[in-house]
């Protein structure tokens, strides 16, 4: 990792070009290689950038609130996205309404960009629902906890998009791309590699978006691969690019390029957003066992939200009164999330028999009937 250079080094020492439009201190980069991406982000004026800052601040406030709720016993578990907001918001804001997202389980920032009510994400972590939102309505599928398995679903969905003829029509309201989000650990899974094969063979309109936060729970990149993720696609015939995942503008521009390739019929792409999980893997994890304080400090200095504030201040686009409003809005969001979660009831026990099958299955119906009869034995207030 380098602090301000635009290239970063993979585990094997290979230098991989890394697209960066803003330095950690908020300066615009001038590297001529990134001129095409600079052009893609050129229409984002200070108003747009402030909107991105707001997105990230809201997501972080939600994330902090969820962590607190877990500590208070209101959630069984929480997976923070702290530090990954730029990769998620930047890529999410590049999506068109018709695009479809298959997230992993840490994509709260992307969920926010898809209009998912963030409080509803906590249904899964509170243990009242396996999902929590209408995937079709938001074009944002359920979180997937079995690492990498959803990348195949995304690939298949993209193959369906192809068959529906909504790729390469030239109409930006019609042409559709599919995005699968996954982490550095997932790249070791067979399903991710099969997704690369199927997507490449079919030239499916897919973006494989890897947030390389450098640790698969405790295992660093060098325990997952010997070739940087951005170069993983080469052997499959899938173009890849590494982007500074803590740079929201670069994340936006790189994703937009990959989405356009997909929508226009140019096939799949692999994006590696190089970032850092500033928090723990989940609230059950203890990062002090596998990361140094020095490394954590280095990445605190690359905080994606601070970078945008620095850029806006540097360029005269910052507005203290407006920022204070956003901070207040974030506090309100936290309060609302807290209130919503505490009032989320457990489902009725008998609901466990619902939605196992679309049409009745004798074994489920037998169990349902048994359970109802068993429960009815306690109807008179007897101890259970």
């Amino acid at each position, binding site marked *: 990792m380098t602090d301000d250079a635009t290239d970063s080094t993979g585990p094997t020492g290979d230098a991989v070009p890394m697209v960066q439009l803003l330095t950690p201190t908020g300066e615009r980069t001038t590297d001529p290689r990134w001129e095409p991406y600079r052009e893609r982000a050129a229409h984002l004026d200070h108003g747009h950038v402030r909107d991105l800052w707001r997105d990230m601040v809201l997501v972080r406030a939600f994330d902090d609130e969820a962590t607190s709720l877990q500590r208070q016993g209101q959630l069984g578990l929480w997976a923070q996205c702290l530090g990954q907001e730029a990769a998620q918001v930047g890529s999410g804001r590049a999506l068109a309404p018709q695009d479809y997202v*298959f997230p992993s389980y840490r994509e709260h920032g992307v969920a926010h960009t898809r209009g998912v009510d963030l409080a509803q994400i906590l249904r899964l972590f509170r243990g009242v*629902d*396996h*999902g929590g939102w*209408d*995937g*079709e309505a938001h074009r944002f*599928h*359920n979180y997937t906890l*079995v690492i990498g*398995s959803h*990348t*195949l*679903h*995304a*690939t*298949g*969905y*993209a*193959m*369906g*998009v*192809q*068959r*529906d003829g909504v790729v390469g029509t030239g109409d930006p309201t019609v042409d559709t791309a599919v995005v699968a989000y996954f982490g550095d650990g997932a790249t070791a899974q*067979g*399903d991710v590699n*099969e*997704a690369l*094969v*199927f997507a490449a*063979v*079919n*030239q499916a309109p897919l973006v494989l978006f890897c947030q390389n936060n450098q640790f698969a729970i405790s295992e660093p990149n060098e325990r997952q691969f010997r070739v940087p993720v951005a170069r993983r696609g080469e052997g499959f015939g899938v173009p890849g690019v590494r982007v500074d995942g803590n740079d929201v503008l670069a994340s936006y521009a790189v994703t937009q390029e990959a989405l356009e390739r997909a929508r226009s019929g140019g096939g799949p792409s692999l994006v590696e957003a190089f970032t850092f999980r500033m928090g723990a893997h989940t609230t059950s994890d203890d990062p002090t066992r596998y990361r140094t304080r020095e490394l954590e400090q280095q990445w605190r200095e690359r905080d994606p939200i601070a970078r945008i504030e620095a850029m806006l201040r540097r360029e005269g686009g910052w507005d203290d009164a407006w920022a204070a409003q956003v901070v207040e809005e974030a506090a309100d969001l936290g309060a609302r999330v807290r209130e919503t979660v505490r009032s989320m009831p457990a489902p009725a026990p008998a609901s466990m028999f*619902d*939605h*196992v*099958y*679309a*049409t009745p*299955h*004798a*074994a*489920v119906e037998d169990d349902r009937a048994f359970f109802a009869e068993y429960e009815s034995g306690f109807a008179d207030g007897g101890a259970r």
Partner: protein
Amino acid sequence: MTTTSTQPAIEAQVAPFPTGTTTLPLAKAITLAMRQALAEDPKVLVMGEDVGRLGGVFRVTDGLQAEFGEDRVVDTPLAESGIVGTAIGLAMRGYRSVLEIQFDGFIFPAFDQITTQLAKMRYRTSGRVSLPIVIRVPYGGGIGAVEHHSESPEALFAHTAGLRVVSPSNPADAYRMLREAIASPDPVLFLEPKGRYWDKGPVEVAPLALPAAGAPTAYDAIGHETLDRAVVVRPGTDLTLVAYGPSVHVALAAAAAAAEEGRSLEVVDLRTISPIDFPTVVESARRTGRCVVVHEAPVFHGAGAEVAARVTEECFFSLEAPVLRVGGFHTPYPVAKIEHDYLPGLDRVLDAVDRSLAF
């Protein structure tokens, strides 16, 4: 969506659909059910390894790619998890895939996608996502194959809620059950007794259900007459033989042999392993007072254990003997030269019948 220019062109030889009752081998009854489904619904896809150009290693998909094209009858990469995983995504986009896993022993790379993803997606999404996917698997032994080509993994899938697991024993059921499986909004594991692929029998062909232009295919009209329903394929009074798939043939042979000695065996073809039609089995076992379950899969933790437990529970006061099971041993499938010592053949079934009747 790409043409394989390295391969020779093939011409479609499209025969008219048969009507009424026709005689077909079991394999071709399956082909016919897929061909009709492809003709009836443009969202139906057939996918698998070698299913297109080659027509499948057993030729069960023969002619389908020539008739319906490479985008609907898809030669996939050689990756079973990928086949099932992409079919899930396609289903979320409205496509109805009929998948072929080339052999029973090759299904395990897809085990996670089938049991964790396919089986549970409806549940995980509170009923919002339906995955009407059929996974066809040639299964079972007796064909002298090399290792991993003769297995019977049904119990592993029947143990997973969210899946339906079925296995036909004859051409008529194979045709009808596959039509119903494709129509089902639930995922169905369709286990084909490969050793009986070329058994011929009468098949009653349903008229092609072509919807009016723009209308959805009337899957409700296809019904649910064979799936989930066991059937008494030979009536009898002394003992109930319960079997499915390739073992029905063995059970019928055993009943015929026993009849020569004056014993009347009833044979029940389960047809569906998940769910099991217990009312039909229990009615028969109560009547005969004796029950023997036959399957090729290992007896230990097999489907027969479920049948035995349930029959014991529901027929306890009607039984003259404990429910017995005949099946494979708790070993990996053995080499071909001794597979007939492993499989539950006629003699082992009759031995169990004798033990039950002697009780």
